[in-house]
């Protein structure tokens, strides 16, 4: 059992891959770079020779996938928040990939608190910026006293609660799924992990990506209505 605990701890720790001038670059950042590089190359390759007339199968699939992804996000945020669709869609791709990358033997970046906190911080900034852009600074400040003045402290607290819940939900889910998978592998290394991996790695990973984007989109929609 001690063996399991040790190996779990080792797996859970986000190691510093290398150090540049005394600054440690963590594994999650490096894996993010890898994801970025792979997607950049894939995007460049896929969007080569796009045709208006008679598109090939690859192009049709790409177009379908992109349209579908944008449709999902737009369905959450609505017509008014169309300008935020590209950001949310890109975040959806990133979290989805980050959650699934464990399959390829990398450590999922979303298992690092730095990443989920970063995502949540960007979400809350975006949510508030959307509110300010919609109502102006005055209207945005005023919105804290709505619907009644007495809830103002709670509304201000929400500024912290929303991103905290976002990041902890993502972090906890990925971490929990990871720990459970490790335990299952320890108990029964053959057969069962494959089945459970379908749920914990694939399904839960994608669901968490969707939930994160869904909630961010919902908060933005709330602020721009």
């Amino acid at each position, binding site marked *: 059992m001690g063996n399991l605990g040790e190996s779990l701890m080792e797996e859970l720790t986000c190691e510093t891959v290398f150090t540049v001038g005394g600054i440690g670059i963590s594994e999650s950042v490096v894996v993010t770079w890898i994801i970025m590089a792979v997607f*950049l190359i894939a995007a460049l390759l896929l969007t080569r020779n796009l*045709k208006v007339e008679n598109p090939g199968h690859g192009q049709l699939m790409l177009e379908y996938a992109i349209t579908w992804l944008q449709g999902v996000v737009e369905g959450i945020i609505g017509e008014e928040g169309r300008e935020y669709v590209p950001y949310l869609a890109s975040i959806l791709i990133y979290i989805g990939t980050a959650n699934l990358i464990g399959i390829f033997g990398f450590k999922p970046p979303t298992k690092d608190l730095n990443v989920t906190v970063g995502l949540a911080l960007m979400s809350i900034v975006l949510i508030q910026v959307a509110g300010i852009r919609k109502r102006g600074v005055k209207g945005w400040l005023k919105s804290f006293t709505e619907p009644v003045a007495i809830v103002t402290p709670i509304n201000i607290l929400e500024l912290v609660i929303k991103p905290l819940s976002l990041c902890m939900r993502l972090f906890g889910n990925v971490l929990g799924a990871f720990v459970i998978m490790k335990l299952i592998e320890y108990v029964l290394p053959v057969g069962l992990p494959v089945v459970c991996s379908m749920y914990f790695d694939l399904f839960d990973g994608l669901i968490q990506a969707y939930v994160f984007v869904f909630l961010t989109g919902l908060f933005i929609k709330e602020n721009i209505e």
Partner: protein
Amino acid sequence: MLRLDINLVFTIINLLIWYVLIRKFLFKPVNKIISQREAAIGARYEEAQKLSDEAQAAKQEYADFQTRMDEEKSRVIAEAQEEARAQYKQIVADAHTRADEIVEESQKEAKLQKERIIGKAQQEIRGLILDAAEQSLGSAQNDGALYDQFLAKAGEASHAES
């Protein structure tokens, strides 16, 4: 596991770069091509609509032309009929006049001829009477021979007349 450090900043920078990359190299070209295609389809649809409208207009014009043709045709026919009728009346009237003239002329001529014949006959008769009177006065011929002579002369005269 639960540490927050400088990597948080790196992550945020990474995410911003990621957003720009995905937007610029994935969403933008794909969306562009989709909107281009939509524009092309729209243009084609518009063109088809235009062609259809044009065809409709041409059809309408042709129908109008046909109607005008029909109207023109019936007008020309009516005019021609009218003219023919007038001409017919004119011809008939002319013919009537001419026939009347002919009849009148021939009547006149017949009358003249008759008068001439009558005149000639009278002259002949007068001649005969003169002859007869001369003979009855000049010679002592019997009445029987005188009558015969008169009759023979009268017959000659009437033969010459006819």
